[in-house]
């Protein structure tokens, strides 16, 4: 397997424009695989599980680096690493769910190398940052020689590891609007241990109570419970516009069971995942407002 590594070809573009040109190949020719931090791709290569022979190394492209913030939100360059995300003072304040996700991706060695763009492109249903990006209404910025395109994160995955990207498109950035003031954010990953393990269930949530005491903003996003990272639309609908109560939490939990479709696999099984997903939802609601757990907030 490893001997085959010596036959692989890597192009090293000077800048983004050059990289986009390299991504443009004749019909029938092999689409080169973009290489960012390599923490997923090298695992596939070392295991002999990646068929591609051509790579475009994006690591040196300054245009894809850095985290920019403004009043309205943050723009993460595709090559922003999870260490950069978890160490960013403003993101820690405004996007704690994303920061929590970044802090639980692999271990430090992985976080120093793994990028947000790579996590999105790898499209694993268990990708740790993906539910956080989804719950935070992220958009994904794409570029090709043909131009720029922005797509909502929620419509990025068409099916299992199937991205709505043209073959010549590269992810250049992920933009995240700051959630409305006073909203509560949540992230929780359940695996065999906190670091390194691949999630059995992973969830991110955002919830806000309006001035009238009713839920006026809710996002519930999940990983490892379906072929793609997914928003729990029915559970969100069950919570929208309602006042916190144990009955509301129970209705949301019941609705969630119709949103998700976990499977039995090497890491866990369907029944466990359904139970844990329900528990995580209740944990989030309880943390967001104690009245979800007890009628009078004992």
């Amino acid at each position, binding site marked *: 397997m490893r001997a085959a*590594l010596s036959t692989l070809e890597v192009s090293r573009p000077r800048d983004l424009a050059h990289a986009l040109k390299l991504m443009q190949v004749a019909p029938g020719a092999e689409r080169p695989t973009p*290489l960012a931090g*390599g923490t997923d791709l*090298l*695992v596939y290569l070392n295991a002999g599980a990646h068929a591609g022979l051509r790579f475009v190394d994006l690591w040196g492209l300054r245009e894809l680096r850095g985290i920019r913030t403004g009043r309205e939100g943050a723009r993460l360059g595709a090559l922003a690493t999870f260490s950069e995300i978890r160490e960013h003072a403003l993101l820690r304040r405004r996007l704690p769910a994303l920061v929590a996700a970044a802090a639980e991706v692999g271990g430090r060695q*992985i976080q120093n*190398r793994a990028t947000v763009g790579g996590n999105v492109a790898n499209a694993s249903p268990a990708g740790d940052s993906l539910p956080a990006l989804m719950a935070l209404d992220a958009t994904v910025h794409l570029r090709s020689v043909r131009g720029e395109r922005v797509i909502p994160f929620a419509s990025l995955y068409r099916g299992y590891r199937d991205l709505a990207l043209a073959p010549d498109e590269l992810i250049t950035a992920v933009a995240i609007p700051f959630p409305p003031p006073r909203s509560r954010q949540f992230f929780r990953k359940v695996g065999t241990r906190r670091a390194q393990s691949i999630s059995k269930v992973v969830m991110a949530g955002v919830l806000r109570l309006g001035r009238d005491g009713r839920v006026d903003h809710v996002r519930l996003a999940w990983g490892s419970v379906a072929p793609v990272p997914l928003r729990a639309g029915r559970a969100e609908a069950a919570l929208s516009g309602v006042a916190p109560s144990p009955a509301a939490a129970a209705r949301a939990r019941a609705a969630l069971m119709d949103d998700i479709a976990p499977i039995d696999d090497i890491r866990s099984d369907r029944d466990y995942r359904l139970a844990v997903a329900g528990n995580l939802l209740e944990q989030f609601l309880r943390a967001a407002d104690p009245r979800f757990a007890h009628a009078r907030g004992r």
Partner: protein
Amino acid sequence: MTSRATLTFTVNGRRRRVTVPPMKRLLDVLRDECRLPGTKEGCGEGECGACTVLIDGRTVNSCLVPAVQADGAVIRTVEGLARGPGLTALQQAFVAMGGAQCGICTPGILLSAHELLARSRGRVPGDPEVREALAGNLCRCTGYQKIVDAVRAAARSARPASGVRRRARPAAPGARRAGAKRRPAGKKLRRRTR
């Protein structure tokens, strides 16, 4: 067909130039081309941390870094941790407190702990913080408690001369060259490794 690339980088203060397949693992380049066998291979898939090295002051799993991405980088392996004739405070603490058993995980753990101490700049990290910082390094002898104790002891005793506390922030560009200048001869390094 074999593709090759000529790459230049600094390892433990010494400039290196290698011609290797661009997707060759940095781990193999360090062990084969640079003859630095202190960096170990464990799982080969980024889970165990045995192959941890520093690139520009940050820990990475060298089994997951293609050689091509090391071009221009400043790399530090366990052989380059100590700068003087002795061991660093961190290494001494591992010896004194039984922080190493079979030793396979030790080089990687030393580098992860080194990064933690550089990050905490003189502050003694708490037990949970050390455990979190070392979470990407597995010890199959399961000697974790003594490892954590050794890291905290090193943080308490860190002296500027040890080369542990005085490291500037890992990503600071100034910090890279400082190491390179201070130790021109790479051949001295190996002697110090037991």
